[in-house]
């Protein structure tokens, strides 16, 4: 996993500001993220934390007129922010592809699944219709859709939620991308189907050697698929590290809070969940210092005055917090209770 010397995706100082409203909204503020070849990173955060904005920035999906993007995004050494025209079209889908939360919205309702995959393939490769169709069939087989020949002729609405998400994954992988971006791909699915899709993505990632960024609000989903976790809060990455480091020895007060806040196991009479007070900040009115400071139990004056820079704790575990000396012993008390 030590591929950081040559990351396939390298984001530096990414700042995204959306205009259009009464006040500009700074959705991302100085995001640094490096994805190694064959690595899976989970971007974890609540609504408005900037995880989806980060994904969309990589594919350049933000409307250029209403968004200002600063910083650099490099994929396989190519500067994504300057791509135009054909180069951008080829980049989208062939180099980097994306799976969305709601396949019903992401797919075209008036074309069959087979037609959509075939079209995607022929957009990127000069191959015959028959070959493209063969590829589509191969893709549906790859994502373990039962009776794939029949499913090629199915419209998205004729499929169940789980099958549709499999078809969406087939569509995203049809042009053989190197990087797969997944935006909450299992959030809309039922529990028993979510597990199936997570296992599928994990297997495909390994089989195809994909590099992957997986956006989720659910820590347990991140633990299932990721090598590393990056926790986002109010447009900044506040903690990154291996899954084990972040889950077992979280050092940012927000991560610690999120982990202890989870309902886990049964409840003793009178027991309450430890809860983070307050609510996530308004991105148009961010405080000058650490955005989490108003909700943080150990915030000091320094936290309210300036934004902390990442502190390296070793092993790639980095935390944007002035108070890491205070969080070091919080861990034992916070480890999720073992329930059998």
């Amino acid at each position: 996993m030590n591929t950081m010397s040559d990351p396939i995706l390298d984001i530096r100082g990414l700042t995204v500001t959306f205009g259009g409203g009464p006040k500009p909204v700074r959705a991302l503020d100085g995001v640094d993220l490096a994805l190694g070849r064959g690595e899976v990173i989970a971007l974890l955060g609540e609504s408005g934390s900037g995880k989806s904005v980060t994904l969309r920035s990589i594919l350049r999906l933000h409307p250029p007129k209403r968004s200002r993007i600063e910083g650099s995004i490099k994929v396989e050494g190519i500067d994504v922010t300057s791509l135009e025209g054909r180069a951008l079209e080829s980049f989208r889908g062939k180099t980097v592809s994306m799976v969305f939360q709601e396949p019903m919205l992401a797919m075209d309702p008036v074309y069959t699944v087979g037609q959509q995959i075939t079209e995607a393939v022929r957009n990127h490769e000069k191959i015959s219709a028959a070959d493209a169709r063969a590829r589509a069939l191969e893709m549906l087989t790859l994502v373990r859709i039962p009776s794939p020949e029949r499913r090629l002729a199915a419209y998205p609405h004729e499929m169940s939620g789980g099958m549709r998400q499999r078809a969406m994954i087939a569509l995203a992988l049809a042009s053989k991308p190197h990087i797969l971006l997944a935006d909450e791909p299992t959030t809309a699915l039922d529990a028993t189907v979510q597990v199936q899709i997570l296992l599928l993505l994990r297997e495909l990632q390994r089989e195809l050697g994909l590099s992957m960024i997986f956006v989720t609000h659910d820590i347990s989903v991140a633990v299932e698929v990721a090598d590393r976790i990056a926790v986002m809060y109010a447009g900044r990455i506040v903690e990154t590290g291996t899954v084990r480091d972040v889950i077992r020895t979280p050092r940012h007060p927000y991560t610690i809070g999120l982990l202890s806040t989870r309902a886990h196991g049964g409840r003793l009479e009178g027991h309450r969940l430890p809860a983070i007070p307050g609510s996530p900040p308004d991105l148009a009115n961010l405080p000058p210092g650490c955005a989490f400071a108003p909700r943080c139990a150990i915030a000091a004056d320094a936290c309210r005055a300036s934004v902390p820079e990442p502190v390296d704790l070793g092993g790639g575990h980095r935390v944007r917090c002035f108070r890491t000396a205070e969080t070091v012993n919080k861990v034992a008390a916070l480890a999720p209770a073992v329930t059998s």
Partner: protein
Amino acid sequence: MASDTVMTRAPAAAQATGSEPVRPLLEAADLVKHFPIKSGLLGRSNAVVRAVDGVTFSLYPGETLGIVGESGCGKSTTARVLMNLIKPDSGNVLLNGRAPGTPELSLKAFRSQVQMVFQDSYASLNPRLTVEDSIAYGPTVHGVSGTDAVRRARRLLDRVGLDPRRFAGRYPHELSGGQRQRVNIARALALEPKVIILDEAVSALDKSVEAQVLNLLLDLKEEIGLTYIFISHDLEVVRFIANRVMVMYLGRVAEIGPTDALYTGGRHPYTTALLGSMLSMDPDERTMEAPLAGDPPNPIDPPSGCRFHTRCSFAESVCSAKTPALTVSGTGHFTACHMVDPGSGHSKAAA
């Protein structure tokens, strides 16, 4: 008479530690609700969604009954039928033994005692009323004077953790999701109900806010002596908040029992599979195999017999032929599975 059968079927009131059987507060007896699907020019209906198909259970005073199941299992339809928001095709709902909409319990009186909180905190508030007016609306309809209703609204806002001086005059769009859901809870409390039905009430909230609202619900329950029906797809949250849990599958009750018994020793293969889909939170104990293949079948044309037999690894011929009845499988624990029913003919059932 329906109430009697319910009583004998579920005598183990949640935490009834005493010997006397506790009278159920709310009872659902054999509820059925089918939705016809209209198609074609003349709007003929040629198929029905069997959303709720024979659901019977009791809710005991002071407990929290969790209802879990996947989309299409009928948990929300059950809630709406209980609330009398939609009329069941057959079966009945009883509050303290009385049916709502009858001379002995008017619908208005029923609704003042049973209230509901929905998932979408924004859609369930009138965007043109301040939150104070929204909360005071119910009491005024029920004959409380305007000033008293406003006073009550302010007291409730304070109780759910929203300072009335800051929040009373705000409109729903000026609040965050968590704050709006607190307003919805305050509004549900305004008529001083006995039962609150929470239909995915915390599902749309961020995790850090969800914990606050769950704690609030627990506090209110203890202080006011409320009884909850807590519907959620989040199995962790249900385990945390519920005393008893009912598992639904395609319009029927698969299993109902005390939370711990169900989570540690579920007897229905669907319960086991559903709970087996919970993720471990342990990077060294990742899920290696999905407990079930495929999606839940369509409730339009559900499988015969036990509706789970198409996905069940223990299915035998009896499972597609005969519908299993809820059978005692432990203290206050009932399971609708032929394997639990002695003499059902299933090879795994005790003869």
